[in-house]
């Protein structure tokens, strides 16, 4: 069953011989080499920062854990140079079906339109994602990944953080300008800064089993309310690579976890669901969950990201994906602060934007959980009404909540410049950039998200040309669509998705979020928006 997929060796580092005044000092130490810590380290390294990445284990593995990675996460991973590998290995899907009892209630498509480089979701075992990220880390000399390095002490000082680290060779110390804690739901750094982590605990128990079988089910997310094979409860079936299927069954609140986990007890349940028992177990886990977040994501020079900062229920794929959004949000800001291009207060926008996103994710996943596991007779009655109305009404279908799948948050943020012009559509400031297909001069197809990567890691001005090139502001990269030398919007989708007219320009942040947009940008207006988005006002 559960096996470590990749084992990494501990290696003694010369820093371990430094003590006293000679303790090594780094701009950033990232704690926790999960998907969030690895991605953050890569992003920082690609921006030119030296990063030490510490992990208390020496392996990746044990179950699939997160399996659904969103379009937004894939676009981030594209920027890190690992997106294609994830997509090649992953199972691409966008359709979900909801069943009630024996029959299908409805189906949804999370990405009904064409012209996007990446699908709505891929399913990929977390250990593959981590392994690919580790491979990428090893290509980047700026990242120093140290396994079996456990942070056991943390001292905040005026200009840095002093860490005490336990290794198989004993303790040593490191100093860091900033420490980013990506050390998971049971974060020990969170305890070290004395932060509380409170929220709502859910009583219902869920059983996750990953089984290996050859099956003809389509690559869709299937969710059942009250299925014949699991009366009165809910069930989820989802495909992963390598003929592995994720099955999630809601259990009784009072079920005995030890007994429920036993393969001989799980097997008959799943056999009823699948209609056969030709499957092998890869992983079985029983869990309860909490929805909670830290009050503050920033404690002095220690910044929290991913599950260390916030936890949600698994319904909606909002755990790993929101952690990755944390990483993409933080890295460019941290880079600017370390380069002294922006004041440290820019980091405050990380807390503001991502804690609001965490609230949204908690709200959405709490609602899904309450719908799946009603808390009272009346809640159950209302759910029953929704499920029965869903058979014949559109509004009933839309009220059925079997998990609202992760979409990037829209930020109400001081980094945005409010619209001064009239817009009938397009992404407003604070929204992540929608993708669109373009053609290069030679006719090659290029997606907007690819053009965004090619022009650099900083701010970008996306211009819809009006024949003559406008005066380029100093600093940001430029993507020009139309005009003499720009990309061609052959299918008209870029123009439509950005509500573009000749002269329209969008200022994009390094994380691909819209900072400002203009019908007819002036140099002064773009400069002001840039300053605002950089935290310089």
């Amino acid at each position, binding site marked *: 069953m559960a096996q470590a997929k990749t084992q990494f060796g501990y290696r003694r580092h010369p820093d371990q011989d430094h003590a006293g005044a000679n303790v090594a000092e780094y701009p950033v130490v990232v704690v926790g080499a999960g998907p969030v810590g690895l991605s953050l380290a890569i992003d920082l390294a690609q921006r030119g920062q030296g990063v030490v990445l510490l992990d208390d284990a020496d392996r990746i593995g044990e179950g699939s854990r997160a399996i659904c990675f969103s379009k937004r996460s894939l676009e981030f991973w594209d920027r890190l140079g690992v997106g294609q590998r994830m997509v090649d290995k992953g199972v691409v899907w966008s359709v979900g079906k909801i069943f009630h009892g024996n029959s299908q209630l409805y189906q949804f498509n999370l990405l009904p339109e064409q012209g996007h480089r990446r699908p709505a979701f891929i399913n990929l075992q977390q250990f593959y994602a981590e392994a690919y990220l580790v491979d990428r880390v090893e290509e980047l000399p700026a990242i120093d990944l140290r396994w079996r390095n456990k942070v056991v002490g943390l001292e905040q000082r005026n200009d840095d953080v002093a860490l005490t680290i336990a290794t198989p060779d004993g303790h040593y110390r490191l100093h860091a300008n900033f420490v980013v804690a990506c050390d998971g739901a049971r974060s020990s750094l969170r305890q070290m800064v004395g932060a509380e982590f409170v929220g709502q605990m859910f009583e219902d128990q869920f059983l996750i089993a990953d089984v290996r079988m050859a099956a003809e089910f389509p690559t869709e997310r299937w969710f059942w309310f009250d299925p014949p094979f699991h009366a009165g409860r809910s069930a989820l079936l989802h495909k992963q690579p390598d003929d592995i299927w994720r099955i999630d069954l809601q259990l009784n609140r009072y079920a005995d976890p030890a007994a429920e986990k036993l393969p001989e007890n799980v097997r008959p349940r799943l056999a009823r669901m699948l209609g056969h028992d030709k499957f092998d177990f890869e992983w079985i886990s029983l869990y309860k969950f909490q929805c909670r977040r830290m009050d503050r994501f920033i404690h002095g020079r220690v910044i929290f990201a991913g599950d260390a900062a916030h936890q949600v229920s698994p319904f909606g794929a909002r755990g790993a994906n929101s952690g990755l959004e944390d990483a993409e949000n933080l890295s460019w800001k941290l880079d600017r602060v370390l380069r002294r291009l922006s004041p440290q207060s820019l980091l405050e926008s990380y807390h503001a934007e991502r804690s609001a996103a965490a609230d949204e994710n908690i709200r959405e996943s709490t609602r899904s959980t309450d719908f799946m596991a009603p808390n009272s007779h*009346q809640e159950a*009655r209302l759910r029953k009404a929704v499920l029965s*109305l869903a058979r014949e009404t559109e*509004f009933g279908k839309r009220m059925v909540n079997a998990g609202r799948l992760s979409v990037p948050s829209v930020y109400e943020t001081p980094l945005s410049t409010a619209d001064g012009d009239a817009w009938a559509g397009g992404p407003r400031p604070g929204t992540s950039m929608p993708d669109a297909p373009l053609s290069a001069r030679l006719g090659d197809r290029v997606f907007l998200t690819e053009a965004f990567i090619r022009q650099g890691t900083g701010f970008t001005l996306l211009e819809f040309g009006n024949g003559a090139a406008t005066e380029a502001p100093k600093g940001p990269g430029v993507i020009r669509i139309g005009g003499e030398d720009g990309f061609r919007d052959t299918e008209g989708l870029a123009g439509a998705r950005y509500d573009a007219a000749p002269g329209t320009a969008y200022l994009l942040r390094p994380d691909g979020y819209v900072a400002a947009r203009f019908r007819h940008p002036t140099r002064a207006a773009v400069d002001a928006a840039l300053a605002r988005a950089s935290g310089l006002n």
Partner: protein
Amino acid sequence: MALSTSSNFTKPDDAFRAVVEAHRGLNDEQSADLDAALVLILANHIGDLDVLREAIDLAKRRMIDAGQQQTQQQQ
């Protein structure tokens, strides 16, 4: 105030009667199911969260008043 509390039916008795008759012959459990579905159908028809919230507040206020009256009677 977005919620209309003036009388909107030409014949309010007909509306009240329609709801009453819908519950005829149902036991409490079935009646509660019917009401749950009815609330959701009407809420969707209204399609305005502010109106819905005001309606909920108004309905809840009745319950609180009734509860207080009961307490007072017991005292």
